[in-house]
């Protein structure tokens, strides 16, 4: 009887920890959203500056996500399917941006694209990354690529290569089998990967700040807007940006969970 009670106590204690954590998180979010009056919030949301930030964030994050897909699909496929010399090293290197502090990633990008002859050459050819929206896309791409890559790699690993073998005996080339069989079968993984990459792109701050700077109405994404307005005391505008970021995160999380089974990648 006594031990039964102790067991129940243990169960209740662990559950309590979970509840306390959840309450903490919810309280934080509600605190942000209710910090100003609803009218001030709506006015700020409709202000030109916030509108600009929303648009810039959406455009840069969508483009950087598309680039992540384009690059990660073949790379993830190669590392899921083939055995070759140096595969382990390649796998590790491709994960590096994940472990790197975004500020460091930003500095590295800034040095490569701002100071080397490679970066200067690109700039002379009209492709300027430093202090431009293009730099934001570059930063988001670099920092978030590993997320896309990892989700896709694990998705491809989960698909039996024999599907492709059969497709090849039915007249497909290797690439054809990939397009007609493996890629459609990876739909859920692709969706989950895109959503998490996009969501993180929207929130990307440190690396983007280093490469693209924080110029009002030029490289002002939602997080940059939050940062700028916070530092000059424009609280309602800062809260507006934060509120949008919270909404986007929650919706993305919800959609990501729908394509479940991929959360284990992280």
């Amino acid at each position, binding site marked *: 009887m006594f031990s039964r009670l102790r067991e129940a106590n243990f169960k209740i204690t662990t559950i309590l920890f979970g509840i306390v954590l959840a309450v903490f998180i919810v309280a934080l979010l509600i605190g942000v959203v209710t910090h100003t009056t609803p009218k001030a919030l709506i006015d700020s949301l409709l202000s030109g500056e916030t509108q600009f930030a929303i648009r810039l964030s959406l455009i840069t994050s969508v483009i950087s996500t598309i680039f992540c897909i384009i690059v990660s699909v073949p790379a993830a496929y190669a590392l899921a399917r083939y055995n070759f010399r140096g595969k382990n090293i390649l796998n590790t290197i491709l994960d590096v941006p994940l472990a790197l502090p975004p500020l460091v990633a930003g500095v590295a990008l800034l040095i490569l694209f701002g100071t080397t002859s490679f970066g200067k050459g690109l700039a002379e050819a009209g492709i300027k990354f430093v202090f431009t929206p293009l730099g934001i896309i570059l930063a988001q791409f670099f920092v978030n690529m590993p997320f896309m890559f990892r989700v896709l790699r694990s998705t491809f690993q989960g698909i*039996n290569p*024999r*599907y492709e*073998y*059969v*497709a*090849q*005996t*039915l*007249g*497909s*080339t*290797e690439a054809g089998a990939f397009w*007609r*069989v493996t890629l*459609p*079968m990876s*739909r859920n993984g692709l969706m989950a990967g895109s959503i998490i990459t996009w969501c993180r792109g929207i929130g990307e701050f440190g690396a983007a700040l280093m490469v693209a700077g924080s110029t009002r109405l030029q490289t002002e994404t939602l997080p940059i807007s939050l940062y700028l307005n916070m530092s000059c005391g424009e609280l309602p505008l800062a809260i507006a940006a934060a509120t949008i970021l919270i909404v986007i995160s929650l919706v993305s999380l919800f959609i990501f969970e729908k394509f479940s089974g991929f959360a284990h990648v992280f």
Partner: protein
Amino acid sequence: MVRVENISKNLGEFFLKDVSLDVADSEYFMILGPTGAGKTILLETIAGIYSPDKGKVYLNGRDITRLPPRKRNIGMVYQDYMLFPHLNVEQNIKYGMRSRKLSKQEISQKVDKLANLLGVAHLLQRHPGTLSGGEQQRITIARALIMEPEVLLLDEPLGALDSKTRIKLREELRRIHSFTHTTMIHVTHSFDEAFLLGSQMAIMNNGEIVQVGEPSEVFRKPNCKFVAEFLGVTNVFRGESVIANGIAYININGLRVASATIRDGQVYTSIRPEDVLLSIKPIESSARNSFKGEIQDISDTGTIVRITVNVGVPFVAAITRRSFLDMGLNQGMEVFLTFKAVDVHVF
């Protein structure tokens, strides 16, 4: 005709060692072997999924060793179906038709014909995930046959099915073969399948082909201990064979067994349990081998009863249930075993 010549392939865990094989046109060829024998990678090498480290594959005299799978016209059916889950049954069956220059109408005629042949016409709009194992395997066969392959490779096609479905689909395979005359190479670890479907059979072990022949031939005359044991041939003994007066006498643990196969030295012998006559009294016959012993064990498998008699070594005789009851056999009873010298197989 498929000809595999001295193929070697090392995939680490699985490998092939110097495998050679000839499969005649329209043959139903069985490959039998335990798990890990290399059966699947042999099929996959024939299909062109792997290119061999060494050796050649010929199809109708043409060297196809370096040809990609799509140019071989060899069909493949796996144990776990590998139906494309994002396509419905009809789209699965006609998947390969994109590489053929046929009109929509011709394709749908072909799909209908095969769907009818395999009895899956009512499933065309369903998705594979909603179907039973037997239904799925019929669809994979249709999907392969629509290409009119010169060879159809079947990798344990009945392995994942329940026993009732397995028997049904086994008959189906026999029917399809007699109907299409497609050359079939069928991998299995079930001897029943090999015996009932195959006109030729190869036994594989450890990445090698150990014996090839007609199933009944292989069954009667296993060429090594592995084949004998793998096929469940009982009464496999090791002994010293001595030739005297044109007949071989094999000394098995003191038991002197006459064999028509003349070979001296250390040999293995096998005597099929159904070739051993069991009687309560000694019988006068032309059979050279007759031994007295005590019943050690009785194992009733339904229609056949297997009796283990100790005649110096444990010897198994198979008798019908009817004669078992007629003779009123019991454990511990003394009986006689009689068998002919020609039934003593030596290897």
